[in-house]
């Protein structure tokens, strides 16, 4: 404990050894509930970023020196990150300022100013934590804004804010749903994350790879393999539930939601007669 306290430079920010120990105990309780082994707790504490933890907690406690260090280190970064997330300068500034307010602790609980920095536990870097908090704030705002659209805006922007038309509810064979749920349940958590990111969120392979810290080609291979194995597993489950192979394939592949027939384009293509066919024929002969 002593070496962690020394390593954290908590003393320089005005944190007493007892306070620092209490912070570590609280974090251990949070992430290792019921852990009685002091060795495991010690290993866990050593994996924490104690220097950044001490800085954040000292800021939360109102240490001027800690705030000075924090602003020197992270102020510019925070605005850069906000710009990266919001993609627009005014929105980015608003986002960063809002987070600053939370970090400083404008809200009061039991008569005490509560800083968001008090929730930092040192599991990751402080800069990474700030990025995540900014991203969460941005997502929350986006969701709220999506739900709360003023009538004026809707009138001005037209269909942009119109509610997305719900897809027609198709009656599905319960055996198919069961087979799919079972196949999905058997997937690894990481595989489900890859499928959801790629197919539901329409993220690129590079984005998914970045989230998992692997190379893009790894994700590419994984997506292919997963899609194939998932189909196969669903078909197997369907045949196990009493369907023949052909029935299972039809049930899976001829879902009405998958029918993407562009009737208009098809009609145009079929009805459009070639323009000046005689001239074209002559030109080709000449």
């Amino acid at each position, binding site marked *: 404990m002593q070496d962690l306290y020394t390593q954290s430079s908590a003393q320089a920010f005005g944190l007493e050894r007892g306070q620092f120990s209490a912070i570590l105990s609280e974090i251990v309780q949070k992430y290792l509930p019921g852990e009685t082994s002091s060795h495991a707790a010690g290993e866990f504490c050593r*994996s924490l970023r104690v220097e950044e933890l001490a800085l954040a907690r000292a800021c939360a406690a109102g240490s001027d020196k800690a705030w000075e260090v924090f602003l020197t280190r992270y102020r510019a970064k925070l605005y850069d990150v906000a710009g990266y997330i919001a993609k627009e300068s005014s929105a980015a500034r608003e986002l960063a300022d809002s987070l600053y307010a939370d970090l400083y602790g404008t809200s009061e609980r039991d008569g005490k100013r509560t800083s968001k920095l008090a929730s930092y536990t040192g599991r990751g870097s402080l800069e*990474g934590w700030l990025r995540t908090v900014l991203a969460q704030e941005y997502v*929350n705002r986006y969701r709220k804004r999506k739900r709360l659209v003023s009538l004026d805006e809707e009138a001005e922007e037209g269909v942009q804010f119109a509610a997305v038309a719900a897809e027609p509810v198709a009656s599905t064979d319960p055996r198919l749903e069961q087979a*799919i749920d079972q196949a999905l349940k058997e997937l690894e*958590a990481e595989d489900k*994350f890859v*499928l959801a990111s790629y197919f539901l969120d329409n993220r690129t392979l590079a984005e998914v790879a970045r989230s998992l810290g692997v190379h893009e080609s790894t994700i590419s291979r994984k997506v292919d393999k997963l899609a194939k194995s998932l189909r196969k597993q669903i078909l197997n489950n369907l045949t196990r539930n009493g369907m023949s192979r052909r029935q299972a394939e039809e049930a899976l592949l001829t879902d009405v939601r998958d029918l993407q027939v562009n009737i208009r384009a098809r009609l145009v293509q079929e009805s459009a007669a070639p323009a000046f066919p005689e001239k074209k024929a002559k030109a080709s002969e000449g």
Partner: protein
Amino acid sequence: MSEGLPKIVLERLRMAEPGGHPDADLLTAFAERTLLPRERDAVLQHLAACVDCREAVSLATPEQAVVPPFLPVRTNWRSWPYLRWGAALACVVVVGAAVTLRQQHAANQPKLSSAKIEQTAALQPRYEQRDEPAPAPQERQDVGAREKPEKDIKANRAPRKVPAAQAEEAGQRQLTLQARNYDSHDQLAGNKTFADSVPARAKEQNEVSVNGAAPSVAEKKKDDEQREYLKMAPAPISPAPMAPASETVTVMAESVPSQTEPASVQKAQATGGASTHTAVKAPGVAAGNLNKMSDARTASQLVSVEPAFGGQWTLSPEGLLQRSLDSGATWNAVAVAPNVHLRAVSALGNDLWVGGAGGALFHSSDNGVHWTQVRPRFEGKILTGDIIGLEFKDLAHGQITTTYELWTTSDAGKTWLRTAKP
């Protein structure tokens, strides 16, 4: 690319219940890959079901933090595959020779009585004569004259008559020579004793004498071939017990900084005329006659000297530096500094740079044995951002990429220039 998934599958995937959201600390640790395995699984399980958290993680992950499958390592490894295969081949040859000779030795190792040894000793001069590789012209004529009658069956059946006293004396001398030679070889090989070795030789000779005939051309040819094989075989393992008394095995020294050279076996005819020298070039062995060496090494030890430098470098998902000495088959963690999450590595020969979260930058000029922390500073500002890229074109010129900045040096990291990322 993928053929996609049916919509109903995607719908079921979307309908999964996310449960409670992990806090920002866990999401950060997930993005930085510092979570414990069970925590990572739990977070991934949630992320698979929660679009908001997936969005947050995606936004919170720096755009440039892509981990390549194998980080570019510019080391002098062009010769490594050759060295590796050479070493493997040398090992196979040495082991094969050892096994073959051991089997032959075991097959020729019946327990003979002392009388048989004496009988063998009586016949020894003939072999001693045959051991001489370059007989005088007069002797060649004699040999030719001996070989002609051998074509005749009767003459072939007739035993060669050797004066008993001369034969005994020559046999004793030969045995003494062998004893000395075997004794010294036993010190080297440490697996065969003289008592084991002599009966083997004696039995071989005894078989000839039992037939009561001079060795046929085929037998002589076989014997010569075997002797040639023994000369060709790597010396330190096992030819010692089988080698004739006139053969010596010499280990040539090579003062090699590159210890990765495979042991190569050279056969060289000594200038001395009659005796044959088999030279084994092996790294890390002092010069001298192997017979006289007190600290004997086997050939397998000689070729299995591990390279003291090099390897392939990569970073584990946990941010640890790892090295592979077998082209990526196995990876071993290399300690750099505690509590540092590394994200980038650059290697140029023995010169290594690694960087990670919070501006942690370390340099090693001895291939990862010793590390020095480097704190790049420019106009009073210290590098504190997460290092996500490192590239050194040569020992002096390098560039650090952080999330938002570029730091360059042209004097091996003594001074740095900071620029904003374009």
